[in-house]
């Protein structure tokens, strides 16, 4: 018949955990690497924005109303999603790990509740807006591109959408799992 005292003794007598050699140095280096990666991500996003804006002027999208609306819907929905992600990330990073555990948990539940709204309401609307924008561009593609290339664009966009949908779905599943875990 075991008592809690026995369990505590078992716990304390478990194999000694070895402190990794150079562990502290590696932690300090890892943080520098993370910051470097964050700067790289911001750089990539900025470059994408500049390329899209350049493309917008290159094809003189502002001269054709349907093309203009289509492109604006596509670019706008993409940017909206990116801004939303960046704001979420900023919010997550601003959660203070020094808070008392009960308060920290409460904050995390609030955060993931908001993420659920983003995933289940806002994201489908964004994808729909993006698809409408693409659909508005199709006549312009059809009249200015060869039949083969037009077919390629249509079918590849379907494939890209499916792949994107798969990854977004997986991300949603993972975050909902976290929320369930926090609320259990």
């Amino acid at each position, binding site marked *: 018949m075991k008592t809690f005292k026995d369990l505590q003794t*078992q716990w304390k007598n478990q*194999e000694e955990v070895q402190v990794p050699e150079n562990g502290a140095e590696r932690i300090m280096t890892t943080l520098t690497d*993370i910051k470097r990666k964050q700067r790289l991500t911001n750089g990539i996003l900025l470059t994408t924005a500049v390329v899209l804006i350049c493309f917008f002027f290159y094809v003189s999208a502002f001269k054709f109303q349907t093309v203009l609306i289509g492109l604006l819907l596509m670019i706008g929905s993409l940017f909206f999603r990116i801004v939303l992600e960046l704001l979420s990330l900023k919010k997550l990073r601003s959660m203070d790990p*020094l808070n008392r555990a009960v308060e920290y948990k409460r904050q995390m539940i609030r955060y993931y509740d908001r993420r659920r709204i983003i995933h289940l309401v806002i994201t489908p609307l964004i994808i729909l807006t993006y698809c409408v924008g693409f659909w508005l561009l199709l006549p312009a593609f059809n009249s200015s591109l060869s039949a083969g290339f037009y077919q390629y664009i249509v079918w590849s966009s379907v494939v890209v959408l499916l792949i994107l949908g798969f990854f977004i779905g997986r991300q949603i599943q993972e975050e909902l799992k976290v929320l369930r*875990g*926090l609320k*259990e």
Partner: protein
Amino acid sequence: MEKSPAVFQSIYTSNYPKVMRLCLGHVNGDEAMAQELAQETFIKVWENLSSFREEAQVATWVYRITVNTCLLHFRRKKRENTVELSQQLAQPEAEDHLTKQDQITQLYACIDTLRSEQKSIILLELEGIPQKEIAEVMGLTHEAVRVRIHRIKNALTNCVQHENI
């Protein structure tokens, strides 16, 4: 506190084993996941070192960061198959023949049946942290911690004795 590599090195060396044990307890003994959580904990310690006020104990401060980090372990995928409680209990071996590691694995499996907040509390208790300090880490009153520990101890002891399965 001064944010110097030497100070961090000393905090890391003296607290790593406890942090690692707490993380292992949170993730049912999954060593790879526990190492990731311990690393994430110490990244936060290093990042926030300058904001540490010395009126609290460094260890209490580190435990708080550990508990908060482990709370979000659901974000990570399991790297190894951890032993399920049912598999553990299906072992025909008598209790006396269980090795030290088997017993710890069984204890992990029982801890894993608890809710995350209960896990944090009982792991700190198993480590021998004073209840007042556990209350400080969790943000609960001393009395609330005392009551919860009493209940969790019973549940855990029952689980290990296979009574409530």
